[in-house]
């Protein structure tokens, strides 16, 4: 079912020098502490990180619970902010496809699509034999999800000892890490434009619609970057 050798190879990627483990842990410690402060118990906190495994969505859920938003509101707000996972999945899974792997495995493995695991896979997929890329990906996903769940538990239990300033410090780690990764990914005209225009249009569209700014900004910037890149031979 799963090739253990490749699964473990993917799993231990979390130990590499450029691993997102620290950023991921910092973000989910803050999430765990936030969950406790809004009244979730430890089981619900674990359940939430395990099932959702996407930080912005968890933040929105927490804020919605505070203001008492309806389930429909939560659904649309989370769907909008996490819709980025769609292009991320589409731009990753064709690299993992192999006829020997059962289709159902892809639908289970897509649960691990989140920025941290996605970036590791995008960096490393060429070094893995195509037949075993999905097993490798599952290893990467399981290790990242384990860090996220463990950090949520840790954050939940140390919540009372975290000052407001420490929470603020933890909250910046993740965006800074991923900003650095994005800058590091700017290796072609297309990628550089996608990253630069994405941040510019994301901000510009915020003034038109805060809910849709990520999707509209990303769509406009990504399409522009694609065409300019194609015109310039990538």
């Amino acid at each position, binding site marked *: 079912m799963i090739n253990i050798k490749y699964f473990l190879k993917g799993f231990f990627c979390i130990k590499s020098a450029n691993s997102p483990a620290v950023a991921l842990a910092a973000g989910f410690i803050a999430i765990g502490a936030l969950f406790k402060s809004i009244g979730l118990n430890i089981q619900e906190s674990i359940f939430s990180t395990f099932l959702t495994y996407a930080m912005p969505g968890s933040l929105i859920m927490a804020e919605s619970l505070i203001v008492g938003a309806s389930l429909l509101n939560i659904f649309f707000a989370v769907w909008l902010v996490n819709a980025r996972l769609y292009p991320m999945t589409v731009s990753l899974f064709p690299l993992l496809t192999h006829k020997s792997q059962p289709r159902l495995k892809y639908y289970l493995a*897509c649960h691990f699509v989140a920025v941290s695991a*996605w970036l590791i896979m995008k960096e490393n997929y060429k070094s893995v034999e195509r037949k075993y890329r999905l097993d490798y990906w599952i290893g990467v996903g399981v290790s990242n999800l384990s860090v996220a769940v463990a950090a949520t538990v840790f954050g939940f239990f140390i919540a009372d000892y975290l000052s407001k300033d420490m929470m603020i410090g933890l909250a910046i780690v993740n965006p800074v890490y991923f900003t650095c990764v994005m800058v590091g990914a700017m290796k072609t005209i297309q990628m550089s434009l996608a990253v630069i225009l994405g941040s510019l249009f994301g901000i510009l569209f*915020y003034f038109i619609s805060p809910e849709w700014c990520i999707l509209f900004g990303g769509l406009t910037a990504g399409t522009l970057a694609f065409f300019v890149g194609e015109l310039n031979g990538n």
Partner: protein
Amino acid sequence: MVINTVLAILVTSIATYISRFFGVMTSKKMRENSKIFKWFNCLAYSTLSALLARIIIFPAGALAEVDYIVRFLVVFICLVIFLVSKKNFVYPTVLSALLLTFLSSNF
């Protein structure tokens, strides 16, 4: 509250999984060297950038309590350190937390 919380978690999980699920479904026959794959690759990076820009400039939660100039300064300093340290991820990541904690508690 208990029922609402559990339902909210389930709704959040479903709303998140939908994008992943349709991603797998629609990429089934996509080839990695096709134009559409390249376009989606650009979309993925630009959407992530848009999300990061939104988190840094218009944050929710704890970050919203810090002045935007302080947030911007921390990200800028960390990016410079990242580039100067030959793209080392550890220095800017660790420094960002320390720097923001220090700045937010003193200014």
